[in-house]
């Protein structure tokens, strides 16, 4: 396990170095001066500019400039937003938890719906149920998310009035942001309307999370289906059934556990996909997350924000990958071997 951890850690460090190299070089490709793009200080006075040039070591060669840039990132200094002139790292710290919250809830919904449906399809392999589930998943996969989001707002918010259409929580509730994860903050707050706020927040997260969940859920259906079919075809299942176990016992005691292991590995991969979908959905549902912020930054040509935002987001996705790898390794001893190490 130690070797496995070390391998992951080194992979992480090298990938991050590559990513910073990329975001560093992008500063020279964006229009405008590299030092302004790096720091976001568009209104800097000549004196401040001199200080900035000193801080980013622009008089030295490109290698030292890169080192200086790394130093700033490690210290948590991602520069200023060109549009609002506020500190990008504080903005990201404020916004990222909302995105994480939304993505996690969406992931949960996608798993809760996708995996059981996939299993059912596999058990009813080549029967009408299987075909039905597969065609529905095909449909779900092909629907563009922005259209689905608007349709969901039109049906569930405007026509039926079941769920709110925008934001994270009704503006009436004052919840102090401590962790940034709304649900935890609500539970920690001492507001007299705590449970009302909790209900309101769940109503707000429901529609966007479901919209995001649709595409990954269809992928989980296929993954669960294939992996279940594979498991059902193995010799140990046949042995179990030869032993005289009932079909239920076989599925719940042997098949599900083994099929799940294969799926967990893919959850990490799906998470990247899910965050991309979440970014578009945040715009539609006015969710105060990093996706909406990034897309607004693109509109406003806020290069510093784009570059730093992407860096943080990719770093975050990479951490999720590593975490799922660990979970996978913990669950499946085979994966800890050298063969799967890299």
């Amino acid at each position, binding site marked *: 396990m130690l070797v496995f951890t070390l391998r992951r850690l080194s992979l992480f460090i090298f990938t991050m170095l590559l990513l910073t190299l990329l975001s560093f070089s992008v500063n020279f490709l964006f229009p405008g001066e590299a030092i302004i793009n790096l720091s976001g200080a568009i209104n800097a006075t000549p004196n401040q500019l001199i200080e900035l040039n000193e801080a980013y070591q622009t008089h030295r060669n490109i290698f030292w400039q890169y080192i200086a840039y790394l130093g700033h990132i490690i210290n948590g200094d991602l520069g200023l937003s060109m549009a609002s002139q506020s500190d990008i790292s504080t903005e990201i710290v404020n916004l990222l938890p909302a995105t994480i919250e939304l993505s996690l809830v969406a992931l949960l919904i996608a798993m*809760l719906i996708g995996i059981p449906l996939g299993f059912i399809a596999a058990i009813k392999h080549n029967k009408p149920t299987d075909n039905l589930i597969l065609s529905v998943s095909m449909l779900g996969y092909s629907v563009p998310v922005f259209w689905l989001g608007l349709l969901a707002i039109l049906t569930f918010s405007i026509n039926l009035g079941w769920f709110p259409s*925008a934001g994270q929580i009704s503006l009436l509730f004052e919840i102090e942001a401590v962790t940034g994860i709304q649900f935890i903050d609500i539970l920690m707050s001492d507001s007299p309307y705590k449970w009302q706020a909790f209900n309101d927040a769940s109503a707000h997260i429901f529609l966007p999370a479901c919209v995001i969940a649709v595409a990954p859920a269809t992928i989980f259906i296929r993954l669960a289906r294939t992996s279940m079919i594979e498991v059902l075809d193995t010799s140990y299942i046949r042995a179990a059934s030869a032993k005289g176990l009932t079909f239920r016992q076989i599925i*719940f005691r042997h098949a599900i556990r083994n099929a799940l292991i294969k799926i967990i590995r893919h959850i990490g991969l799906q998470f990247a996909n899910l965050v991309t979908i979440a970014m578009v959905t945040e715009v539609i549902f006015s969710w105060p997350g990093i996706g909406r912020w990034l897309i607004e930054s693109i509109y406003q040509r806020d290069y510093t924000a784009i570059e730093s935002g992407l860096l943080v987001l990719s770093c975050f996705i990479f951490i999720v990958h590593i975490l799922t790898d660990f979970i996978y390794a913990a669950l499946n001893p085979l994966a800890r071997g050298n063969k799967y190490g890299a």
Partner: protein
Amino acid sequence: MNYLKLVPTALLSLLLLTACNEGGKLSLSERSVIYCAEGSPETFNPQLVTSGTTIDATSKQLYDKLISYQGDENTLGPALAKSWHVTGDGKKITFYLRKNVTFHHTDYFTPSRLLNADDVIFSFKRALDIEHPYHLVSGGRYPFFENVDLSALVDDIEKINDYTVRFHLSRADNSFLANLASDFAIILSAEYAEQLTKKKAKSDIDTHPIGTGPFKLKEYRVGSLIRFYRHEKYWQEPAQIEQLVFDITPSNTGRLTKLLAKECDVAAYPIAHKKITERNDLSLEAVTALNVGYFGFNVNKAPFDSKLVRQAISYAINKKTLLEAVYQGNAEMANSILPKTSWAFDQSIPKQKFNPVLAKSLLTLAGYSDGFTMDLWAMPIQRPYNPNAITMAKLIQSDLKNINIKVNIISYEWNTFLQRLKRGEHQSFLLGWSADHPDPDSFFTPMLSCSATHAGTNTTFWCNQEYDAMIKKALQTPKINERKKYYAQAMAILRQEVPLIPIAHSKRYQARGNNVTGNILAPFGGINFYQVAKLNLTSKNTGTKQSRKRRKNDIIHTGVN
């Protein structure tokens, strides 16, 4: 089996959780109102701006004035001053203040005393006295006070005792009281200002406001929301709602969606009026704003130096089509420069007729039987009083073609347009005027007086001594009926002379859920949430009845108050 069984239970519980939400939230939402506003305020001090968005968010929510407009007739009534007295020569005006007015108690300020004369003097001196320590805080521009030239009018503000203040004016001016009742003449706290001076945070006075109004500021997130709490110790009955939230939603469709999804109770400037009126749980309301969109002539330039030509054109224009095509029916036809809601509006003025035959004969009389070619300047941007001047110009073009007048439409970028107009480079133009307060003088003097030709707000350059004499007399008489007569005479002169053709008074729209009662919109100035209340959604049948009853009461209430 366990796992499979769990899935539907989990989903069900999630659904239940969200379903019971509506019932549970009521207790807080019943006592609060969310208003979907169209933009962020620039500051929290209305003295510093003229922008409608800022006035809406601040003036009537956070502050009070010495006197205010009351009732349907918009007559002046007491507010922070319980009474006032004007001397015979009209030059000394004494205000007697209420003795029970408290300032807001907020996270950033705890008042130790009630409102007194110092606060009044501080508030006005700040705007009028260049040497006042707070004059230059936040830029030192007070556009409303500069426009009406209040600093030249007010010689001194004297403190007689703690609850009596006297204004010494350089001349009698009847619009002075009207100006004091406008949304800009609010009362700040001198005690708060003193504290800020000590803390060296003077500019906080405009960003962290303290006033005496029905609501106090709790939280402001730029571009996102403004949260107000009720001012519990308000000098009148406290407001019925405890919390007022401005949800800042600049996108038109965003506001509509939130309104339809019931995420806001009241929405500013709604689009898709039909969609809103179709729903029986929402209602659309409108007030005719105190403004006028008009077609003006430069009387210094031929052929518009001839009264007959101007009259001819006024008969040749079909205002009805203009209203339908340009305002989409969202405006009232203008008969004079004053809207119907003004107390000086004269019912006896006959409606302008559409009569091309008469127009032609008038043109012949003026010596232009073969017609002529003219330039028409159309403003390039959308304003409340004229949402689309270019379309209007095209319609006028086709109307005037019928009486052999060829129209060239000209437009410049907005600032250039205004500058060139001021220099008098135009022949005729499409423009409008929005009044700051309901005193009729805010139309007559700045739009058409001789002095306004120098100030650049009268771009017809029409200067009529008789008209000027009328409006001056009207300003010097305190008696409303006499003033009315003078204004009626002034309007009769305008009708004869036609320096401009008034076209429309546009309306301001607002949409709200039917469970929200109380007046919010006013024909002039900012919105007001003081009288707003919310009905319980669950008792639907009794609710609507009650709301009708309540609304009637409100009207009576405003009439008396």
